[in-house]
């Protein structure tokens, strides 16, 4: 079949990252040497770019930056390591390994990410190899956890429909694995694999990615309605499971979503993915591969800010991309099937799965697993992991499901849950249970303001307003990020905050509770006092004027408090 489309990538000189990838000999660069250099705990910018493909970032403790500079010490360099857990599922054994590594090499905490992965912070250069090797020994890895490749494939961990979940999870896992880069760089650098002499032919090494990999990161998610916890519309490529009488028949395919933007650059914007059709489970990989190759060939390699697939789709046009996809596939997608989402948050506490096993969804503030004086979360989970026979499931909302607990074990697990006061969040306000915050300070190099460390405090204060307005049980999704990269998908929260400067945030309103509509900026660059003043007006008003079952995000739109964002392209106006 002839391709009558003439698609092309935007011209312009390739960005510096493209050069680095090109010179890197399939992601090796000079990492082998720099990791051995003892004079600095850091590595060169070029190598750090490549490091991402290996699942890690060089960071520094920003709390100490200025102080150390005065002390004639380099920044407190340390590595963040992101462990891929497709679909967020890990075994108790793996949990114990993560826990141990965090204590031994990391900063003693674990971060459950918004893409259902583990993150460790504070690992020193000299400990990286050991850490990665021990992770590898536990049957997990960090390959392509970051970088211009496909990332950890997200998948709804919803335990309620176990068979379907299992099947969907199987497909996601396979997708995640099959889309990995093929280069042996990772194995050579970290696992002491012998280097094969000479540079083999591209097709042997990276048949799909090619030597330059993708223009930008690429993200895939799989949702199982009615839960949109994975925020399917924020993904570059999404699959919505279609279940007909408890059988998985296939997936609706969505393309072109993404959250990231830059302050003051209207050329960048969050965008929601669009449904382009339906495919059978066994076709999932083909579709993903071809979509990725389209982005590989037509994505913007000159301007990284506009390199995500969402911009490629908006530039080429949805239909053109769909047509190109079908050309490459050699077959056509079916008509999309009806589906319905009703929320993008988590459901907490004990539920019984259809297979008779039990699942406990635990509320984890900011996704941070740590021991506080009054809340020994990390220890509690360690104790549970020691006796748990099922699995642990990381949710897209940074929470944790202790899944597949047999009825016999349930009692013991529950005893530990109570002994350590591990909470399903029931005694928290619904708004806190529906909160999401990115890491931000002190580790994130891009943070402009606090997020994970600050949102809980802010919610303490918002709770007072919530109380007075009698909205305690009303779920309102609230999300905060330290910068417009939007790692906690803030523009899909009914109340969103994006950091602008220390203590200053842009405030966004009007996103849909089910993740199907973006929010819009309501106030720019405001501090805590103004934030609270705004909410002191908005929340009581919502309490009074809302219609039956109306969500806050829909209310503010209906009440004309904010204009609806109908497409990412009109997010800024």
């Amino acid at each position, binding site marked *: 079949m002839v391709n009558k489309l003439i698609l092309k990538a935007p011209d312009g000189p390739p960005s510096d990252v493209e050069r680095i990838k090109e010179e890197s000999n399939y992601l090796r660069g000079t990492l082998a040497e720099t990791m051995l250099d003892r*004079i600095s*705990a850091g590595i060169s910018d070029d190598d750090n770019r490549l490091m991402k493909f290996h699942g890690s970032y060089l960071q520094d403790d920003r709390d100490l930056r200025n102080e150390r500079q*005065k002390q*004639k010490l380099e920044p407190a360099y340390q590595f963040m390591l992101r462990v891929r857990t497709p679909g967020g599922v890990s075994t108790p054994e793996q949990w114990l390994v993560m826990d141990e590594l965090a204590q031994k090499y990391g900063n003693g905490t674990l971060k459950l990410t918004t893409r259902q992965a583990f993150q460790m912070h504070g690992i020193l250069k000299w400990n990286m190899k050991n850490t990665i090797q021990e992770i590898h020994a536990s049957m997990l890895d960090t390959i392509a956890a970051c970088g211009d490749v496909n990332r950890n494939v997200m998948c709804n961990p919803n335990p309620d429909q176990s068979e379907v979940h299992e099947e969907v999870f199987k497909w996601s896992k396979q997708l995640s694995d099959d889309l990995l880069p093929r280069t042996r760089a990772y194995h050579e650098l970290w696992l002491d694999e012998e280097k094969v002499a000479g540079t083999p032919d591209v097709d042997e090494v990276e048949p799909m990615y090619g030597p330059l990999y993708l223009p930008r990161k690429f993200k895939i998610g799989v949702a199982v309605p009615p839960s949109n916890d994975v925020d399917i519309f924020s993904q570059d490529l999404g699959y919505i499971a279609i279940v007909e009488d408890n059988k998985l028949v296939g997936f609706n395919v969505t393309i072109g979503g993404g959250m990231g933007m830059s302050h003051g650059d209207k050329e960048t914007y969050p965008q929601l993915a669009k449904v382009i059709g339906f495919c059978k489970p066994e076709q999932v990989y083909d579709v993903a591969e071809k979509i990725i190759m389209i982005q590989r060939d037509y994505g913007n390699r000159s301007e990284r800010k506009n390199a995500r697939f969402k911009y490629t789709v908006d530039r080429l046009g949805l239909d053109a991309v769909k047509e190109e996809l079908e050309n490459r596939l050699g077959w056509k997608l079916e008509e999309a099937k009806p589906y319905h989402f009703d929320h993008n948050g988590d459901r907490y506490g004990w539920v019984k799965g259809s297979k008779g096993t039990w699942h406990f969804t635990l509320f984890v503030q900011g996704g941070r697993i740590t021991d506080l004086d009054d809340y020994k979360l990390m220890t509690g989970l360690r104790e549970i992991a020691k006796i748990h026979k099922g699995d642990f499931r990381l949710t897209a909302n940074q929470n944790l499901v202790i899944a597949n607990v047999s009825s016999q074990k349930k009692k013991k697990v529950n005893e530990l849950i109570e002994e350590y006061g591990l909470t399903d969040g029931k005694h928290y306000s619904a708004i806190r249970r529906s909160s999401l915050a990115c890491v931000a300070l002190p580790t994130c190099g891009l943070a402009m303001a606090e997020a994970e460390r600050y949102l809980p405090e802010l919610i303490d204060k918002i709770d007072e307003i919530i109380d007075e307005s009698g909205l305690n049980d009303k779920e309102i999704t609230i999300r905060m990020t330290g910068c417009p990269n939007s790692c906690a998908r803030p523009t899909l929260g009914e109340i969103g905050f994006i950091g602008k400067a220390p203590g200053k945030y842009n405030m966004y309103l009007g996103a849909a509770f089910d993740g199907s509509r973006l929010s819009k900026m309501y106030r720019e660059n405001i501090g805590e006092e103004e934030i609270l003043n705004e909410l002191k007006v908005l929340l009581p008003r919502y309490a009074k004027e809302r219609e039956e079952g109306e969500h806050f995000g829909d209310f503010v739109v209906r009440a004309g408090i904010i204009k609806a964002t109908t497409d990412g392209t009109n997010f800024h106006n």
Partner: protein
Amino acid sequence: MQLQVMNSPFNQEQADLLNRLLPTLTESQKVWLTGYLAASQSIAATTGTEQQLVAPTAAPSVAPVVEQTISKEVTILYGSQTGNAQGLAENAGKTLEGRGFDVTVASMNDFKPNNLKKLHNLLIVVSTHGEGDPPDNALSFHEFLHGRRAPKLENLRYSVLSLGDSSYEFFCQTGKEFDQKLEELGGTRLNDRVDCDLDFDEPAAEWLEGVIAGLSQAQAGGTEAVLPTTAVAQETDTVYSRTNPFRAEVLENINLNGRGSNKETRHLELSLEGSGLTFEPGDSLGVYPENDPTLVDRLINELNLNPTEEVQINKQGESRSVKEALTTNFEITVLTKALLEKASAFLKNNDLKELLANDEKVKEYIDGRDMLDLVSDFGPWNGSAQDFISILRKLPSRLYSIASSLSANEEEVHLTIGAVRYEAHGRERNGVCSILCADRLQPGDTLPVYIQHNQNFKLPENPDTPIIMVGPGTGIAPFRSFIQEREEQGAEGKSWLFFGDQHFVTDFLYQTEWQNWLKDGVLTRMDVAFSRDTDEKVYVQNRMLENSKELFEWLQEGAAFYICGDEKKMAHDVHNTLLDIIEKEGGMSREDAEKYLSDMQQQKRYQRDVY
């Protein structure tokens, strides 16, 4: 031969008497007579009579008539680690020249031992280091004198001035050894040895008086007047000196250790503006500290004295309040046996008397204890404030290797000071000077300082000569000054630095500066060892071994090797590792390796600044 009027100073009658008497004398009678005559200052022998009057063996304690060829030659040899002995030697040299002697002042290292026999008058000024060891530049000479090749020295007249610190077990050990050895070799003292404690100016001056007397005596007539003692202590280069310190303003005082470190290392920047003080890389800065005021209060309290009571603090009769005196003038944190004995007179405590009877017990007791312990353990104090002051020794200055170069930082001097804090006998103890700097010294405050020149720790004259520097912990200080200097000089010579401490993240002193110097190529190479980051401890010497081949190549290329820092452990380990490397890479026997190293020392290519 016969005495005659023309070949002797005697008249005919005297000559006859003598000619009749002399042949009848036995050897021992001759010896006695010589001594008698010498002693009674009426030596008037002529060269002609020497053979007859000579006392071949067993020289008497007083200079004999022998060698009465009036020698105005005086050789002063010094052994000095941190420059005190050298300074005194040089000043003594000047003084003697002023008195018309012809003087050679040299480091023991630079002196050819074979010339020893040719000397008539030898003055030795030497300090003691390590645990009773000679300073580096005295080692080979010391070894020579104590070895089989040491010559007989009947013709030598000598005197020893030894420097030391009475708080060390082997007080002035090296000086004592030289003094005794020279005697054994047949030399005669022209003045008795003087052992100086840290406050050495007065005793040194007195020693020199004695020496001049001895020398003059030996000279016919001995007419030369003795110089005033004060001239001796005078520093020559600037008005400010150890005895007249300059109050330097603190410009900067920061902790170099990052959060969470077990260590605290202060980086101090002082202003020398207006002092006229100058120094070279490798020199040290002397700092006069003050005692911790709270400790002083507790002590006065324990002594049950009135803090405002006036006491006299020196021979010159200066006086001030007890509190001031104990804060700024006297040492209260170190105990010595001598001090215990003096104190015992006023404590009248039997347990103390008992303790003093047993040297082992004394050693054990004084370790890690101070005056406050002494008084509270054996009090009450049955003496006056003045009594107490009178038993104390002056608060000695502390030396710090200078960490900056004048050409890089004009009119400034930088220091790298490790805070000394430890627990002993149930009390938190603080290093006097380091904790003053760490806890009580703000920018704007001043410190009394002086320059301690150290010729034994200097960059090679030739800027192209490669240098290897080993400076763990605060030992890094002088190398910062070295590299600053070489950067200013635009020196071409390669440089290699070994540094170590506990933890990379918090204890990498001056990290960013080294990184920049490495980037710019001012520093060629750096190897670091952090002992507590890994399961098995690694130290600088391990890094040296890992690079032994290259390190030896550098030595072969003529590199100078420097060690600075902890004397007790590090310096020894590094020294031995260096020997191992020379042995291994040079394919030498241990003896040859040692020879190789002592040759390097001779050529000033192996220098240490250890403490």
